[in-house]
């Protein structure tokens, strides 16, 4: 079954869409990056460390990481209402948790590092593209980090596991239907974020994580290449 499984866009089951990564796209930010899976495009801008405002949210013991995820109104076919929504607030929080294990901002007492993620164009896996862009932007901003993170969505279409979902696959209708599992991995292969939207067995979940590790290598290579390119230019 694995062999002759057909994906709507003709990709292999473990094939990612074309990755585009670029660093330094927002000149006014302290660090910025763009990351795209095919036509899912995310840009991230990092500001700080700077003093946390309002003052009552300051943490005098360690620095704070604050992420905001936003989908632009023209990023999808049907215009979405701009501004914060239940979904975007959830993804902002999840992005923060995905990045927290790698950023070393304990010394930035009472300060905050702001990460703003904007989705320019969406075709599923937007949170993964956002996290990948944020990791590069944080490195570009000179924030100390244990490693970068790589994020990818693994899907289960009916009973078949696939890498890097697109919108069409998210709405899979055959058999058991679609399951979406976004996974974020740190440099040493540990999971910093995993979500599950659907149903999956334990054995297959382990296989999904394995697929994410495989894809993570390709994403990491793209992130590394983009960062080193700006480094050489300067």
């Amino acid at each position, binding site marked *: 079954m694995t062999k002759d499984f057909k994906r709507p866009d003709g990709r292999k089951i473990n094939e990612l869409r074309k990755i585009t990564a670029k660093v330094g796209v927002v000149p006014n930010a302290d660090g910025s990056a763009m990351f795209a899976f095919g036509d899912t495009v995310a840009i991230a801008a990092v500001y700080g460390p700077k*003093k946390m405002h309002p003052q009552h949210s300051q943490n*005098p013991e360690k620095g704070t990481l604050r992420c905001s995820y936003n989908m632009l109104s023209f990023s999808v076919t049907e215009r979405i209402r701009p501004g914060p929504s239940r979904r975007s607030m959830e993804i902002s929080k999840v992005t923060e948790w995905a990045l927290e294990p790698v950023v070393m901002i304990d010394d930035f007492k009472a*300060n905050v590092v702001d990460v703003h993620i904007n989705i320019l164009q969406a075709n599923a896996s937007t949170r993964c593209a956002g996290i990948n862009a944020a990791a590069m932007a944080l*490195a*570009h901003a000179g924030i100390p*980090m244990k*490693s*970068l993170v790589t994020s990818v969505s693994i899907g289960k279409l009916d009973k078949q596991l696939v890498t890097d979902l697109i919108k069409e696959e998210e709405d899979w209708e055959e058999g058991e239907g679609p399951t979406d599992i976004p996974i974020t991995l740190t*440099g040493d292969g540990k999971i910093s974020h995993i979500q599950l939207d659907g149903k999956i067995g334990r054995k297959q979940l382990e296989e999904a994580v394995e697929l994410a590790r495989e894809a993570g290598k390709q994403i990491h290579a793209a992130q590394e290449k983009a960062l080193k390119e700006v*480094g050489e230019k300067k």
Partner: protein
Amino acid sequence: MTDRKIVIPGEVIAKGDDYLPGEGTEKRNGEIFSIKFGLAEETNKLVKVIPLSGVYQPRRGNVVIGKVENVTFNGWVVDLKTADSAFLSIMEIPRYVDKEDLGSVMDIGDMLVAKIYSINKRGIDLTFKLKGLGKLEGGMIIHINPNKVPRVIGKEGSMVSLIKDETGCQITVGQNGFIWIKGNKIEDELFAKKAILYIAEHSLIHGLTDEMKNWFDKEKGK
């Protein structure tokens, strides 16, 4: 010194116990990892990473340029474009100051050069007790990426003295990226500014001081 190499966070720079982890690096299981995006450098078995971008991290002993943000009863609050605010106490001014009228010495909006003498939980403390520090009068201020300041200064100040000689301007470089230029004519100041911005843009060239000598010859020939 070995060749400099661009590294990203989480990259292994050196293996084995022969090396010591320096700034911007961390030792995990006998391997030295980079924790910053920058240039990795090794001198006498000490490995460190020089960041390429990012905001200025204040350090004790740095000479910085800032703007007076507020005047309080015992000193001045100074904006250095850092996360923590800086304070210059009247105790740190090596001359008589009328305590009733601090604003007459330096008022809000004035620029100054000062040295960081301590960094603590409350913020950064500045001092004027050194030659060349004080309020800045006249001239112009430009701002560059703080990570490029070492290139503008050059080895033992070679680059700054070159620009000073070529343009006839007085130049003070703050570690936080602010640069004060004062010349006799505004044209001289603009010429110095052009030279500094050229250095900031071409900061990765080897032998930059020689390159700048040629650049000055070419610019003056025009």
